[in-house]
């Protein structure tokens, strides 16, 4: 076989050749072609030597700051909300619970101990799914505070998005805390108890706060270790047996909580 062409060598290196076996045995025995291959490898090694400058830890935040005012609002058609998979999953889960409750009532003895035990399981299941979603969203809000640092010289930090979400979470948090206490889930109740003043703090803040106020909220989050506690309880919920359905969408969470109280 005559020497391999540059194109064949590059194709071989890239795994883009059908004659791989033949080229491999040729390369084994041909020093000229091996030298050529080494020169080609040196091109790629040289490319790897070019550093990519670090755009900074806050790069993603800068990108968001630049683009977010330019993102037009998206209005989903009314049927989109109904067909949203998470909502469908939630509706399906609720429908299954209703059917199960109906069957329990239909085929078991009235006021028997088994019926009471099953009804208790159903209540717990609803609580697990709904609170799991609530904790996941609370965790995101807390993380946005914990992972953001105001820029040097920045006079005000816009927290309107987090504030709006904290308002929504606050009402749910109260309902879940009461339910957890009633159900005797002490760890969940205490975690939600500690989460509430932080959510209240964020919800009652103005749209824009000073870096000092921002750091104040960060310190309160860090001091209570609330982010870790929320994660632990959230993980614990995920591990509970039977927690296989996707968490319901926000409005379903609120509805299911209201139904229980």
């Amino acid at each position, binding site marked *: 076989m005559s020497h391999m062409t540059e*194109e064949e060598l590059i*194709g071989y290196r890239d795994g883009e050749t059908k004659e791989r076996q033949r080229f491999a045995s040729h390369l084994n025995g041909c020093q000229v072609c091996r030298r050529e291959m080494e020169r080609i*490898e040196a091109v790629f090694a*040289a490319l790897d030597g070019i550093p990519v400058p670090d*755009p900074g830890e806050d*790069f993603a935040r800068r*990108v968001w700051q630049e683009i977010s005012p330019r993102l037009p*609002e*998206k209005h989903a058609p009314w049927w989109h909300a109904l067909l949203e998979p998470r909502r469908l999953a939630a509706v399906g889960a609720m429908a299954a619970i209703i059917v199960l409750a109906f069957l329990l009532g239909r085929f078991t003895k009235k006021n028997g101990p088994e019926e009471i035990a099953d009804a208790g399981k159903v209540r717990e299941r609803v609580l697990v799914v709904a609170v799991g979603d609530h904790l996941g969203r609370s965790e995101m809000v807390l993380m946005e505070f914990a992972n953001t640092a105001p820029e040097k010289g920045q006079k005000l930090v816009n927290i309107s998005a987090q504030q709006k979400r904290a308002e929504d979470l606050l009402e749910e948090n109260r309902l879940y805390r009461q339910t957890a206490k009633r159900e005797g889930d002490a760890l969940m109740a205490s975690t939600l108890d500690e989460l509430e003043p932080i959510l209240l703090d964020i919800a009652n803040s103005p749209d824009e706060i000073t870096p000092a106020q921002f750091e104040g909220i960060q310190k309160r989050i860090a001091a209570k270790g609330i982010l870790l506690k929320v994660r632990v309880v959230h993980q614990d919920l995920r591990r509970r047996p039977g927690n296989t359905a996707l968490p319901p969408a926000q409005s379903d969470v609120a509805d299911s909580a209201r139904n229980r109280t």
Partner: protein
Amino acid sequence: MKASIGESENHAVTDAIAVERTLAGDRDAYRVLVDRYSLYLYRLAFRMTGNSHEAEEVVQEAFLRAYQKLKQFAGNSNFGTWVYRITANYAIDRIRQRNLEETRQALPARLSNDGVEVDPVAWVQDPAASPERLAGSAELAAKIKQALDTLTPAERTAIVMRHWDGCAIEEIAAVLKSNSNATKNTVFRAVAKLRKALEPFAEFRNTARAMGTES
């Protein structure tokens, strides 16, 4: 693509939820995607444009375009792969535009005495810079950067996607709006040009020597 940030199953699921929520009107959900992919896209954009400021602008524009086309995405593929392609497409358009403007401005300087255009690779093989003079790696890095600048936008895109991001030829062909064979040729041309531009330099030859039998 190599096992990238957009490939994990967990990310794919949370990306799909974020896309779905964004389409349902929750604009903040889009931030999850911006946070996750900004740095990944920045690396691609920097390697394609060779300029950090321009790379930052490319990333911003790519996210804006992705947001506008989000309905078209509709979960057909991995969001990371999709937005990567949008970034590569935008970057290549931008390099073409920039090259066009630079050519217009620099045209008289790039012609030899008889009016024939000079081979761009020859710009890198500057006779004033003898191979032996280029000893420092910073100097070599500068030469590599210059060599990359001599590639056409398609060649540069092909080598960046192929070498750094391990994209399949078909993926590169989709961005270049070309076919597989033509794309393979583009990769080959890019490597050959880089080699031609770099081989005269001592440090580059040392790298080759260190890799094997070169003497």
